[in-house]
């Protein structure tokens, strides 16, 4: 009975054990938070990439012969049982300039032109093959999106003439464009404003020293929001049918976004499509999965997450050092007690157990504290971040640096429990060393100890 009793008194009666518990707790808490953030980054990155990238992207090589019609390509792709939908579309780099905002004196022309990807879509197809609908709905459902949302979800490019802000443009049959909500806010653009979008038409000879550019005026019909800053900052949606005239191309599409059925093996699908397209259409297509497209970025995030394991190793070492020192100190201070316990008939095993239990208490209470603190921090991470930023006037998390508006957090309770468990077990194991030393102490030496 004395084992638990004395262990409790030794542990709870000494401030240093609380310090050790706090140290263990902080280590566990930090690790839980870091694990949550790193997993959050990965999950968020994947979510965002998946949300803004089709499962599989098929690109024809136009120099490989006549590109078949989009209907034909879509038909071949959709014939695969793993394919849910295929959306042929255009995608091409361009620059835009805000119409009616002419440069301030001395500013270089580049300062008012912004790089973008212009994506020409068929709304119905795009909605089936990507989360296009959700991007539009995000603005509609956002209270701050008032005045920016599209008029109609089914026909997002529709805009009442009366809303075109420049009266001169009201009666010209101008194509429409959708722009990211965040981008409209930062440029101070409103629905009905016009953009001049410039690209290089297919007819241009890129080898000559100067070549033609093709410019069209587009009217902003509404905003979308993928919550993925990098995508939002660099993408404009236009109707596919308006694309060829602006871009000076005679093709119907230059890529196909493919949505696979739930749980499909994308690698297998990729190889099947490469084969079937080649067989049916007799030309080469490049087929990429969403992971292929973003391999470098995903790899970087995954690599960062692996650093976590190294970090975990260091934290374990730290926790073990702390508990080991505290327990060793305890044993050294209690040498006399060990002698008296022996004189009262405590066995060596019993004496060892007193100290081992002390270690178990410190490790368990510390771990438990860390688990609770970690869970709390994980749950309130962005509140804590906001508070620190507001109180100390520093910026911890810059949404422009990362692709996300909040610190991403994927709080995996099972992982947290695992982190805590491994830490506690490691601490308990290291405590066995001083505990065994206590058990092996000669009782007479212990009693004679000064």
């Amino acid at each position, binding site marked *: 009975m004395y084992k638990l009793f004395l262990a409790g008194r030794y542990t709870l009666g000494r401030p240093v054990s609380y310090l050790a518990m706090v140290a263990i707790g902080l280590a566990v808490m930090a690790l839980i938070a870091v694990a949550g953030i790193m997993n959050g980054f990965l999950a968020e990155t994947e979510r965002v990439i998946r949300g803004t990238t089709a499962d599989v992207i098929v690109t024809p090589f136009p120099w490989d012969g006549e590109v078949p019609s989009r209907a034909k390509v879509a038909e071949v792709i959709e014939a695969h049982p793993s394919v849910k939908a295929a959306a042929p579309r255009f995608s091409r780099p361009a620059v835009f300039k805000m119409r009616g905002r002419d440069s301030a004196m001395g500013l270089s022309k580049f300062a008012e032109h912004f790089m973008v990807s212009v994506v020409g879509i068929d709304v119905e197809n795009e909605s089936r093959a990507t989360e296009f609908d959700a991007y539009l709905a995000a603005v509609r459902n956002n209270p701050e999106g008032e005045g920016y949302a599209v008029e109609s979800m089914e026909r997002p490019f529709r805009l009442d003439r009366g809303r075109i802000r420049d009266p001169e443009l009201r009666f010209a049959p101008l194509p429409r464009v959708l722009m990211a909500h965040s981008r409209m806010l930062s440029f101070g653009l409103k629905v009905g404003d016009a953009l001049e979008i410039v690209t290089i038409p297919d007819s241009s000879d890129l080898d000559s020293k100067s070549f033609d550019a093709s410019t069209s005026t587009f009217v902003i019909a509404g905003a979308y929001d993928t919550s993925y800053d990098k995508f939002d900052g660099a993408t404009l949606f236009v109707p596919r049918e308006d694309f060829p005239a602006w871009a000076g191309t005679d093709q119907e599409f230059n890529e196909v976004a493919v949505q696979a059925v739930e749980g499909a093996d994308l690698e297998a699908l990729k190889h099947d499509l490469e084969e079937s397209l080649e067989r049916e259409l007799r030309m080469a297509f490049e087929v990429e999965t969403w992971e292929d497209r973003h391999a470098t970025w995903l790899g970087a995030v995954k690599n960062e997450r692996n650093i976590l394991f190294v970090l975990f190793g260091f934290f374990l070492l730290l926790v073990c050092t702390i508990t080991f020192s505290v327990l060793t100190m305890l044993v050294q201070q209690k040498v006399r007690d060990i002698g*008296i316990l022996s004189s*009262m008939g405590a066995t060596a095993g*019993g004496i060892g157990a007193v100290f081992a239990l002390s270690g178990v208490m410190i490790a368990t209470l510390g771990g438990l504290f860390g688990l609770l603190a970690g869970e709390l921090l994980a749950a309130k991470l962005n509140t804590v971040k906001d508070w620190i930023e507001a109180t100390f006037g520093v910026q911890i998390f810059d949404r422009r640096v990362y692709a996300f508006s909040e610190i991403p957090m994927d709080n995996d309770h099972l992982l947290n429990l695992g982190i805590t468990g491994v830490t506690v077990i490691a601490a308990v194991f290291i405590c066995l060393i001083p505990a065994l030393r206590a058990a092996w102490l000669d009782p007479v030496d212990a*009693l004679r100890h000064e």
Partner: protein
Amino acid sequence: MSDVHPPAAKELVLDARGLTRRYRMGATQLDVLQGAELQLARGEIVAIIGRSGVGKSTLLHLLGLLDRPDAGSMKLAGVETTKLSKAARARLRNQHVGFVFQFYHLFPELSALENAMLPGMITHRFFAWRSKRAGVRERAKALLERLELGERLKHKPGQLSGGERQRVAIARALAGRPSLLLCDEPTGNLDERTSESITNLLLDLAREHGQSLVLVTHDPELARRADRCLTMHEGRLVPAEVATEIAHPSASPASGSPE
């Protein structure tokens, strides 16, 4: 009266014969005990006096099963102990031996009452403790009250005087109803008056309960009140002439050998 043997025909609590204990320090060897003998009857009180460093503590550690002799036999409560396992010796120590040390050796984190309950906690396992706790507590409390500490049950050692601490230590040593109480200079760290009163309490208690007691002391007054008084001479216990010890502390012990 001063004899190494107890009155015949009484039950022996302790029967130690030919105890040898030597310490090795590198090349040199220190023969502290060289065949010490001690028989103790139930209820008997024996005092051991002697200069510092002659091996009194070493002997008590052997008698209390904290240490093993290099040679000799040790019977405690009828059980031959030298060949027993560590665990068996620990159990025997818990049941039959109570120690009181010069420097009290109380647990600073525990109250007086909890200190006195410790032997009981060691005796009873975790699951038996529920049913035994009240009994152990009553026994410890009664002892502390008998030792005039009834008002100090909840006090920690740090809040007690030296004399009070030693009384707690005595209560703790007696709490397990040991067959044998071993006191190693219990008043060596106390002033004269406190020492006097503690001695009175200790001897009164021992006589009341018929407690066998081995008392190592520097105090001739104390030694004189024991049933027998022995001293260490050349690693053995021999009867002490108390008067001689007092008059000539450095002189060799009185002549007169065990029969």
